């Protein structure tokens, strides 16, 4: 039950994704062809607010709701960051969706996108199978 609050945060996030239209394949093609500021404005302003929030959390030593200090795991840089990043970029342009929008689209009743989501799960599973053989 303690996880129920994350359902509501996710719900708000899914709602925003739809209203932001970042779930549109057309918007993603428009972005990659530099034909509108829309997507850049969204990603840029999201990072600005996120960065400002983390700066304030660190500066004022803000605790989480249980009173624990907030910790953020660092993200490691390795060859996978580049190779995997490119692979995701290819998939992003093809499907016109990153993982968040896939979930939101499925929720909006776009059953065909469930096929894309299942393919993404298969991709993650394949990564897990091959992990030790892939360059990192």
């Amino acid at each position, binding site marked *: 039950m303690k996880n129920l609050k994350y359902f509501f945060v996710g719900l708000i996030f899914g709602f925003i994704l739809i209203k932001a239209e970042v779930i549109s394949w*057309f918007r993603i093609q428009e972005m990659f062809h530099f034909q509108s500021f829309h997507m850049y404005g969204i990603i840029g302003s999201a990072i600005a607010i996120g960065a400002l929030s983390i700066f304030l959390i660190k500066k004022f030593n803000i605790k989480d709701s249980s009173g624990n200090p907030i910790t953020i795991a660092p*993200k490691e840089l390795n060859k996978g960051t580049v190779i995997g990043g490119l692979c995701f970029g*290819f998939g992003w342009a093809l499907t016109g969706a990153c993982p968040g929008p896939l979930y939101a689209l499925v929720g909006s009743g776009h059953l065909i996108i469930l*096929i894309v989501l299942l393919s993404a799960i298969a991709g*993650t599973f394949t990564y897990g199978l091959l992990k030790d053989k892939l360059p990192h």
Partner: protein
Amino acid sequence: MLELLTKPWPWYVSGPLIGLMVPILLILGNKSFGISSSLRHFCAACIPTKVKFFDYNWKAEAWNLIFVLGVVAGGFIAGILLKNPEPVQISENTIKDLQGYGITDFSNLYPVEIFNFQNLLSVNGFLFMIIGGFLVGFGTRYANGCTSGHSIMGLSNLQFSSLVATICFFAGGLIMSWFIIPLLF
């Protein structure tokens, strides 16, 4: 008021709201914003396998699965109950470019000519839906994050690895949309 909820929101409203996910999750429960990990937790929870990568206590990460379940619910409310009846207002140039590929239907969130069940077995449908989806799941795990975990959370936390990842996401997307997608039509 209702119109505010059915109409699409401009970037300067939706972008900052997406950014707020970062502090909300950190303060609610010390959680780092990210979506693609849920695909791994799903494998660990639902696929019977001895693969080491999926042999961990996924229940400790159950919040992330509940979170994406919420995203599905949010999609239902915003995309069905409060659906925007208008097609997405993309730029004229994009429409012209895509018409050059033979796309004529701009009424949905994606070209229904490509994304439909009948097209799954065609080469181009298989590439856009199955291979595309596969690359999203494979690439995000290989890179250890997606647009949420790297581009928003990671960059907000000034992670160099997330900058590299974001540049590669865009590089991959640009290569695909400029040089490969035009060949698929």
